[in-house]
């Protein structure tokens, strides 16, 4: 394991951006100068100024405040969805890899089926059929992305299961559940953290797309994807409406991807050495 201090500067920058975004999401109610949904009919479509740092949108809502609350929505939802995905994927992957046999065959069949479905299409269809709500979004995201997790977890479990010490622990009378939780889970923990981190980035992008299509977060909830959709008509005259949320998504995803790389470095995962971005 290499030292945090030795990591390249770029990772530290990414960490700073991420921390800035997360803290502004957490403290949005304190930082935001306006209520994100407060409509100011006299101040519609203002450009950047002291009163409105990033201007206002067509309804006169303060863009900066909406960006802050958008971070809150995006990050909290992405983390929640990634958690659900991870829990489902890890549980099924561990069961499948550890017990093998018919259970493994069934779960692997499910994995193959879910990986054979184009994820975003399914998300659109599920969100479309169930109607847009946080629950249906969570359901759509979890259902379409657990398979990748479980596949990787299963592979790791298969590797660890053959180790001698697992045999030893079992002969001492440890139950399967105990072994899974106390021996297998800690072993795959590092890989999981990385997968989890990178997954948050992917989910932020998917959710933004769904919101852009009107299938994600519902108005008047401030969401970056929805803000871009609102900006579609005005962007020529008011580029701030388009650029601010877009750049925020870009910065958030890029820094999450970089943090994923930094974690690979920290955990010394050799096979991914060449895959790092920077």
């Amino acid at each position, binding site marked *: 394991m290499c030292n945090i201090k030795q990591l390249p500067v770029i990772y530290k920058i990414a960490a700073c951006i991420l921390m800035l975004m997360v803290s502004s999401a957490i403290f949005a109610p304190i930082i935001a100068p306006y209520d994100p949904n407060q409509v100011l009919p006299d101040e519609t479509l203002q450009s950047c100024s002291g009163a409105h740092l990033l201007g206002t949108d067509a309804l006169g809502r303060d863009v900066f405040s909406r960006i802050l609350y958008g971070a809150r929505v995006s990050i909290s939802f992405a983390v929640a969805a990634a958690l659900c995905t991870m829990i489902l994927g890890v549980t099924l992957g561990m069961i499948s890899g550890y017990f093998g046999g018919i259970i493994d065959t069934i779960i692997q069949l499910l994995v193959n089926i879910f990986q054979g479905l184009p994820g*975003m299409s*399914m998300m659109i269809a599920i969100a479309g059929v169930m109607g847009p709500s946080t629950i249906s979004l969570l359901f759509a995201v979890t259902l379409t992305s657990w398979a990748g997790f479980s596949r990787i977890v299963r592979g790791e479990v298969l590797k660890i299961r053959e180790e001698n010490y697992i045999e030893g622990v079992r002969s001492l009378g440890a139950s399967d559940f105990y072994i899974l939780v106390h021996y297998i889970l800690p072993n795959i923990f590092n890989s999981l953290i990385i997968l989890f981190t990178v997954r948050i980035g992917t989910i932020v992008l998917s959710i933004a797309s769904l919101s852009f299509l009107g299938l994600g977060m519902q108005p008047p909830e401030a969401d970056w994807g929805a803000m871009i959709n609102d900006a579609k008509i005005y962007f020529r005259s008011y580029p701030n409406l388009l650029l601010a949320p877009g750049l925020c998504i870009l910065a958030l995803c890029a820094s999450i*991807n970089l943090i994923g790389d930094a974690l690979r470095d920290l955990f010394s995962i050799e096979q991914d050495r060449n895959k790092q971005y920077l």
Partner: protein
Amino acid sequence: MNDILFYLVKKLLMIIPVLLGITIAAFILGIISPSDPAAVLLNMDGVSTPSAQEIANKRHEMGLDRPLIVQYLSWLLQILHGDLGISYITQRPIWDELMLRLPVTISLASCTLLLVIVTAIPLGVFMAYKNNSRSDFVLRTAALIFTSVPAFWLAILFMWIFSEELHLLPTSGYGTLAHLIMPSVALGAGTIGILMRLQRAALLEVLEQHFILTAKAKGMPFPMIIWKHGLLNSLIPVITLLGNYFGAIISGSAVIESIFSLPGLGSYVLEAIRGRDYPAIQGYVIFTGLVFVLFNLLVDISYLLLNPKIRLGGK
């Protein structure tokens, strides 16, 4: 020869459960949808507020009171005959509507895929060749940005710059290749970023292999070694993942089609969602799933061409 046949049959058999899974997923979508097909059909027939008895009769007529498994099987049989039901909105067969729109999505997806392959693979090779140089760093930064940028935002930026400011490309519509340029780039950007990185990593991994040393010992220049021994070997892992990325392209096309007003499967499903046309959404799932599965089969076949070990039945 037998080995090839065996491989192909195995791959064909393996897609059967996936195809069944797709239909099951689509069927379940139909079940969880909040509307009652019987009520909708009665509405179509002009009964605006059907009584409970009328609905029950209609349900019985449509077979909706049978066990789910029977319903699924008869529905599956219909699909196999190319019958996906009637659209609630247009009242036309959904199969025909989807077939009408399929070429648009296919052409957008193939255009994007072609773009991805011809840009990402050479760039990835170049990055590996110039490993850790300044140009490698610049391209890796570009790859990071491509993977992190939302496609729909990029699409709007392109429209702004290339259509509205520079008047180079048409904003929307379908017909010529020029109409597909911006959509393809916007749709492919994310995949280009991922694939660049992947190709670079795959080639770097190959370059550490023993046989590259053998080739060096023969006195051949490095670019020639990459061309003759590095490229093909690094393409094998990259091609395997190409199937996955095609899924991202096919499903991402919904957003891009809606922005550029391309009359493909994606804009169709968005209309269907707006109109609560659930059978059409089911049809969309089946169609995109089918395209994805068939493409993956194609990838498996191309894999056969690339990898002699599989072609000739090695261990």
